[in-house]
């Protein structure tokens, strides 16, 4: 036992990475999620609601995804099978598209929002529980789908007041095609992939042999879209990579066509979290905000269907939204008729009723953190 006493006796202490969200943050987060889902709906994405827990095998979607390390597992006493708590909703929605909605017309547009739980946090995301909101577009192979996804991402962020988001575009297929040409042993290729992802120029030089100058050029090309495309033109790349770059260019052009001030960067060597992405992918950032607001990209869904998606992470996103405007709260002194209270709420007031007589009313109003007080038949500022 240390001088601090036993942690087990402390009723306020929560496990690492889990928090209580208090007023006004809890209400604000709920409102932000609603606005995101509304924006998805406006673009034609219909909401689905997968369960919190499902069989481990279906939760992981058969993919070798890194998610397996993140899920809490419980034994289902009924089926005697292992179940997992979802650590990411994307694969659940892909499962719905491939099974119950297999016969729904394509392209299929689905949206979702909900809480996820992870065994451990990371440097940037110490939270073990947080909310996700996103969409999946299943059965659309064309660049039109890629464009819709980034445009929707930017629109959703704007809908919650984040106007200065920057979109970082990549395609894992670019580096993959360069590495294919090299025909490296699997473990060297894997280390090279990590070194590229970290933009570790020295390690890339040591691992890539004759391809090092080209890969260094790809690292150095990362940056604002226009300059990046100009640099790509000077690097000799396999045809598959050039095709991907053309596709990125189309997406970047479409984004700046909507808003010429939209910040777009290109980074061909980005890889983290895109291990299963097969084409145009993106990460969303906001200036001054630690970590990613969201990400998305093209992948091959369960039944081999081309798909793309978008996920927003509410923990980092909430750090980027403007603070909520303080609510206007109206104190109704004890004895205010219920009809008056109802009328004030009808007008949009938040009403806080005095539950017992006595005391100075303006002091009571202040005690209840009210901005206004109902006096002489009208609200007056406290």
């Amino acid at each position: 036992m240390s001088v601090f006493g036993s942690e087990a006796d402390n009723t306020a202490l929560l496990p690492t990475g889990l928090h209580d969200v208090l007023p006004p943050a809890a209400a604000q987060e709920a409102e932000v999620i609603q606005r995101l889902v509304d924006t998805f709906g406006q673009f034609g994405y219909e909401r689905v609601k997968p369960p919190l827990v499902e069989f481990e095998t279906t939760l992981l979607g058969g993919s070798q995804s890194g998610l397996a390390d993140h899920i809490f597992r419980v034994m289902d006493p009924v089926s005697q099978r292992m179940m997992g708590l979802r650590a990411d909703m994307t694969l659940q929605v892909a499962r719905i598209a491939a099974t119950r909605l297999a016969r729904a017309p394509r392209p299929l547009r689905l949206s979702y929002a909900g809480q996820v739980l992870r065994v451990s946090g990371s440097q940037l995301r110490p939270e073990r529980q947080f909310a996700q909101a996103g969409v999946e577009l299943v059965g659309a192979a064309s660049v039109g789908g890629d464009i819709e996804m980034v445009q929707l991402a930017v629109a959703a962020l704007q809908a919650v007041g984040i106007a200065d988001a920057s979109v970082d575009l990549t395609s894992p297929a670019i580096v993959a095609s360069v590495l294919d040409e090299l025909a490296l042993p699997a473990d060297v290729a894997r280390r090279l992939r990590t070194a590229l992802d970290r933009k570790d120029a020295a390690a890339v030089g040591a691992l890539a042999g004759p391809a090092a100058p080209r890969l260094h050029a790809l690292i150095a090309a990362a940056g604002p879209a226009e300059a990046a495309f100009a640099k790509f033109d000077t690097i000799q790349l396999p045809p598959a990579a050039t095709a991907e770059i053309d596709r990125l260019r189309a997406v970047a052009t479409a984004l700046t066509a909507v808003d010429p001030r939209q910040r777009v960067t290109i980074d061909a060597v980005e890889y983290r979290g895109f291990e299963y992405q097969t084409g145009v992918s993106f990460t969303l950032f906001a200036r001054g905000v630690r970590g990613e607001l969201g990400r998305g990209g093209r992948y091959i869904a369960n039944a081999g269907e081309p798909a793309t998606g978008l996920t927003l992470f509410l923990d980092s996103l909430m750090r980027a939204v403007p603070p909520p405007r303080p609510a206007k709260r109206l104190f109704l002194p004890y004895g205010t008729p219920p009809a008056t209270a109802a009328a004030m709420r009808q007008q949009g007031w938040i009403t806080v009723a005095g539950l017992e007589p006595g005391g100075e009313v303006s002091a009571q109003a202040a005690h209840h953190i009210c901005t206004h007080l109902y006096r002489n038949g009208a609200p007056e500022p406290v």
Partner: protein
Amino acid sequence: MAKDDALVLALPKGRILGQLMPLLRAAGIEPEPAFDDPDNRQLRFGTNLTGLELIRVRSFDVATFVGFGAAHLGVCGSDVVMEFDYPELYAPVDLGIGRCRLVVAEPRALVAVDDPSRWSHVRVATKYPNLTRKHFAARGVQAECVHLNGAIELAPTLGLCRRIVDLVETGSTLRANGLVEIETICEVSSRLVVNRAALKTRASELTAWLDRVRKGVRDRSDAA
């Protein structure tokens, strides 16, 4: 430009600064005079450029400041980058200075009787517990690390543990303490590091700095 908007470059305290300053000056960065005054207690320094500030912290802390985005750019050794392995830290430029290597060493007397291929567990004193653990795990050996912040060479002579993992430049400190290098873990040099989110959201400013430093490194190696 508002002060809050300035880019922050984190530099490591200590002898590496002597090799680093010519590179920074070549890139057009001139710190305010207080930076070169050893008695000055200031922690943040201005430069000749309004949009650029310097901070001077321990080499290990450079990685942490940049990894969490508190500083946008920094300079630290590849040993530090590997030890923390922060996913949000990019190391796009090898500055080619501060060269040394990270090694496993043990007392001369032990070398004669030791067969590293038979180890299943080692106890190691080091400043680099994560790196050490991963290095040994990759060859199937469990490393129990005793975390020290300096004077690692003392550990074997005083019986804290028999082996150490430490940086070696010439090897004279090891020799003076009766220790012998038995394995090189990696070569080390200083890196220009940059925070990932900063590189994405302030792309034009930061890529311009990276290009400038790259050019400085290239010019210097051309001249050599």
